[in-house]
């Protein structure tokens, strides 16, 4: 009897352990990370590496002086704008390339070239073409991110096998319905994965764009802090950025993915 309790923990217990794993483990990981940061700061000195406490204090100051909102809001809008352009273009091009051989041959080189060109080139070109403004920023972010999304969607669409489509065909399902009800659901996971990846890229490029030619935004503030060698502010802005990314990941991407793929078996190692 005693052994069976250990072998088969009751459902409540298992849920509890599962819940602990979800909260406690990331919590411990966070504490360890901050600990390492603190230790490194102590060794190197605040001049080179401000610790978590002064960084958090500076971040609080930035919040208090309204600098966070006036810089984070434009940054987020630029990220979303550029990302939206890239996602729409990337999904269209990726799906077309994945479904049609001729289009694949035709577009492959273009996408590859687009991927090879450094983001700095897009940024400079866009500033030269459109001026130092939001349009240039969004086009540059979009152009940099689009090939990455296109390639991910393309390889995903190519990898779906024709078995389900053949099945639907033999049962007399129309082409239109096969595209929307059989092929599209198989492509969705790749679009979501590409979006996640592309979003990360869009963030990084946005910072770069702001640093290069704009007068507000997190990237601009980072550059400004760098110019006056204010290491604590550099850390504070980076921390803010990381927190925003994590919140988006936990509040938007993960729940969306879980909802979209609720039919999938849970993977247990």
């Amino acid at each position, binding site marked *: 009897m005693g052994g069976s309790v250990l072998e088969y923990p009751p459902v409540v217990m298992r849920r509890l352990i599962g819940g602990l794993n979800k909260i406690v483990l990331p919590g411990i990981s966070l504490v360890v990370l901050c600990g390492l940061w603190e230790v490194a700061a102590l060794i190197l000195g605040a001049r080179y590496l401000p610790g978590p406490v002064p960084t958090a204090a500076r971040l609080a100051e930035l919040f208090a002086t309204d600098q966070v909102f006036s810089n984070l809001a434009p940054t987020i809008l630029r990220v979303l704008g550029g990302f939206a352009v890239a996602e729409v273009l990337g999904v269209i091009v990726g799906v077309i390339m994945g479904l049609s051989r001729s289009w694949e041959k035709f577009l492959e080189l273009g996408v590859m070239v687009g991927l090879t060109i450094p983001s700095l080139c897009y940024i400079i070109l866009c500033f030269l073409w459109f001026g130092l403004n939001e349009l240039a920023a969004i086009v540059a972010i979009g152009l940099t991110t689009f090939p990455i999304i296109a390639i991910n969607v393309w390889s995903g669409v190519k990898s779906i096998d024709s078995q389900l489509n053949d099945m639907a065909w*033999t049962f007399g399902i129309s082409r239109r319905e096969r595209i929307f009800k059989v092929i599209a*659901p198989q492509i969705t996971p790749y679009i979501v994965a590409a979006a996640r990846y592309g979003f990360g890229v869009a963030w990084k490029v946005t910072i770069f764009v702001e640093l290069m030619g704009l007068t507000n935004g997190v990237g601009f503030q980072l550059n400004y802090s760098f110019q006056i060698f204010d290491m604590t502010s550099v850390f504070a802005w980076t921390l803010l950025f990381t927190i925003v990314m994590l919140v988006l990941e936990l509040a938007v991407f993960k729940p969306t993915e879980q909802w979209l793929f609720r039919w*999938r078996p849970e993977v247990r190692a």
Partner: protein
Amino acid sequence: MASIAVDDVSKHFISRAHADRLPVLQNISFTGGNGQFICLLGRSGCGKSTLLSLISGLDEEFNGKINFDGVTVAERQNAGVRLGFVFQSPRLLPWKTVRDNLLFVLRRSGLQDWRERADLWLERVGLKDFAKAYPHELSGGMQQRVSLARAFAVDPDILLMDEPFSGLDEFTGRAMRTELLDLWQQTGKTVLFVTHNCFEACFLANRVIVLGGQPGRIVWDAPIDLDHPRDYEDPDLFRLSVKLTHVVMESAA
């Protein structure tokens, strides 16, 4: 109820290994219908699955004629000839529940009572309680049972099956074969069943067509005159299966 006529069908694949083309089927002719249960038997590579995909219309490049009561295979979708197909793997849409998988094909079947048919057939294959389950929550045998229900539910003119039980363990396979025979007798459907398993062919069919050789030809075509319900332990069944095994082995060259 439709019949099927395969008339002098030949098929070749374009292949890089062979200078121009690789013939896989040569001068295949047979007709079937009236609720026959025909097994197409042969070793792997004899072209039996290829023949099934020609009959279903998935592969349209071949010489010869395939008709369903005078409707050519190319016209069959427009003419409303319905086929049921059970594949080697269940081929269920993993994002749809068991019931929705049936409804998905039934909705376009043109049948009046399509909604009721989903529930009716889930009950007939013993999966009524799993209607709301997703395919991954079912065992391989149960998934194939859903696939069977799907094929019967559309009230097909001809039922095509491509080694549907070869992926199952022997005991599940036996149970499913018996179940299939029950359903076949209840519905009187004409079945075309591809297999490489001689015993399975003898157990199920009332007519066996053996494909053999390279390219594949019909080397044997004869009725199986055993009474239903059939018994796995029947010595006549066993003898017949041994005989067919030799036919298939000798057809190899």
